[in-house]
């Protein structure tokens, strides 16, 4: 019988959700061989995560095998993707997401410590960079871009929430209700935002003039600055 220290690790559900959503964004924006490479990489990450879980349950040999296989999987995924990318722009576009997802996972399944907000920002930021590049290279439809942006925000929100909960309550506390409501609310806002933009675009016909487009963009930026949270 001894005192149990608080395990200040990121909350499991929100953390897992964040990684899954970020992976989803990466998969949707990848194309062809890139998608296969990403899938292999994600499987590898899952292997590493399982390895750590097993490590805590004192099955050290199995955990090493799993983590090792996972690591090899990640490497194979990245190499397969680099070798078989359909073109340089596809490679450049998906590279940030491919690196961002493992970074996010490392932030939320920390080997030690209580997780890192900086790594969450870095990981989700990389995934969002892929979204921006996809928009820049016009390799994804506007609807996909819209959904991917909203999903990136949800992934960041869930990741940040997981770390905050881990710091204040620790992993052994029951928090699923709170996490569910929080992510649910963010999800609703995301759906509303996507729905609103989608509806507006369906109603508006024709391409906007350059002047109109610029005015809209500037107005939008000013609005953001005014709303500054």
């Amino acid at each position, binding site marked *: *019988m*001894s*005192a*149990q220290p*608080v395990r200040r690790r990121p909350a499991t559900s929100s953390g897992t959700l964040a990684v899954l959503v970020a992976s989803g964004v990466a998969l949707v924006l990848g194309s062809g061989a890139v998608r296969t490479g990403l899938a292999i990489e994600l499987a590898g990450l899952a292997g590493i995560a399982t390895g750590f879980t097993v490590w805590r349950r004192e099955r050290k040999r199995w955990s090493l095998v799993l983590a090792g296989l996972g690591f090899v999987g990640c490497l194979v995924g990245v190499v397969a993707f680099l070798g078989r990318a359909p073109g340089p722009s596809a490679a450049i576009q998906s590279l940030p997401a491919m690196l961002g997802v493992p970074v996010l996972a490392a932030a939320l399944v920390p080997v030690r410590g209580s997780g890192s907000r900086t790594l969450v*920002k870095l990981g989700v930021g990389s995934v969002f960079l892929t*979204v*921006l590049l996809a*928009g*820049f290279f*016009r390799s*994804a439809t*506007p609807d996909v*871009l*819209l959904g991917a*942006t*909203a999903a*990136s*925000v949800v992934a*960041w929100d869930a990741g*940040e*929430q997981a770390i*905050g*909960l881990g710091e*204040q*309550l*620790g992993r*052994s*506390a*029951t*928090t699923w*209700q*709170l*996490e569910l*409501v*929080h992510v649910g*609310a*963010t999800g609703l*806002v*995301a759906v*509303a*935002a*996507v729905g*609103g*933009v989608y509806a507006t*675009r369906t109603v508006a016909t024709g*391409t*906007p003039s*350059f002047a109109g*487009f*610029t005015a*809209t*963009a500037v107005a*939008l*930026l000013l*609005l*953001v600055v005014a*709303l*500054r*949270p």
Partner: protein
Amino acid sequence: MTDPSPTHRWRGVLAVTLVAGGLALVAKRPALLSSAVVGVVFVAYARVTSPPSPTLELDRRLDEASPSHGDQVDVRTTVRNVGDRTLFDLRIVDGVPPALAVVEGTPRHGTVLRPGEATTFSYTVAARRGRHRFEPATVVARDVGGSWEVEVQIDDGTTVDCTTDVPAAPLRGRTLEAVGRVLADDSGAGTEFHQTREYRRGDALSRVDWNRYASTGDLTTIEFRKEQATRVILVVDARPVAYRAPEGDPHAVSYAVAAAGQLARAIVDNRNHVGLAAFGREPCWLEPGTGRNHALRVQQRLADHAAFGARPPDDAPAVADQAKALQARLENGDQLLVLSPLLDDEVVETVRRFEAEETPVSVLSPDVTDADGGGRTLARIERDHRHRTLRRAGVRVVDWDPERPLSVAVTDAMGAQQ
């Protein structure tokens, strides 16, 4: 309740929006402009939510309010939302007494509470000797988006009482050692038989031993022991050094405070007067008094005076000054009962100085040194040495292993010295 503070957690989205909007403008990509709109919606979401104003009630239930040392006590804490708004993000950290260790479950809980709804969580603590008051539970409430944060403390004053009655305090008689009471050695009026002597003119008729007169014809007078109440000042050593403890165990001050409460009770039960003082961060003085109510006053003072705080102070005034202030308050015939783990030489020096000024001192020393580890072993040797020094100076020292009840340690010590 603290003022709501903004968490600024949505600031990152602002950056995302600006980058997406900027890129859309520079590279003429209308699709990215719609991405920026999504960002704007999230920024607006962070703005429209209002800070929560939680009104909460706490109810803490113990399955055993007076456990024995080492028992496991289940704590069930219920928090109810008595406000009229839903609290979307409540993070509750229960105020487990610092001396008690949580051995199962966690005193932390996160949940959502609709108006009138309550949440219950439970955990198990291991009881340690002493009276342990639960601290207020800390609740952090956030709005649904997490842009505002409010901290509240809620309390219901639960106490775990893990003490046993002590029959007597280890005190020093002026000239005679007696279990329980401190008695004067002169004869006179009283209730306890002392001796018989030859009748002298003027002795009260009620005190003549008539039985003896009937059988032998000698007139003798019975003398009773004169009782004289002693004033005992309990002095708790609560200097930063006394807050030491083996890993995961309560510190010596928490043991000393618990023991002082029990001893105060024992002293007044034996019709003596008890006062309270401390060597610590703040001066503490409670004028000696007697009776159960006074014992309760002593226990109250031990529970809420800053000098006996559960967390160690950063620094404390010099003990010599505090001792001088205490000396000035003492009356002739007062005795001191110092509760100290004896972890440094300063306290030994202070006790010897009191003894030199003819104030009888007894020391109750909770043993918080640990047998394992080199440094600890050294601490134990030094502490034994201090015991010997004090005993040589004529001070009565009771060594108390907090794993054993205080009453046993006191009874043993008094038996050994009689």
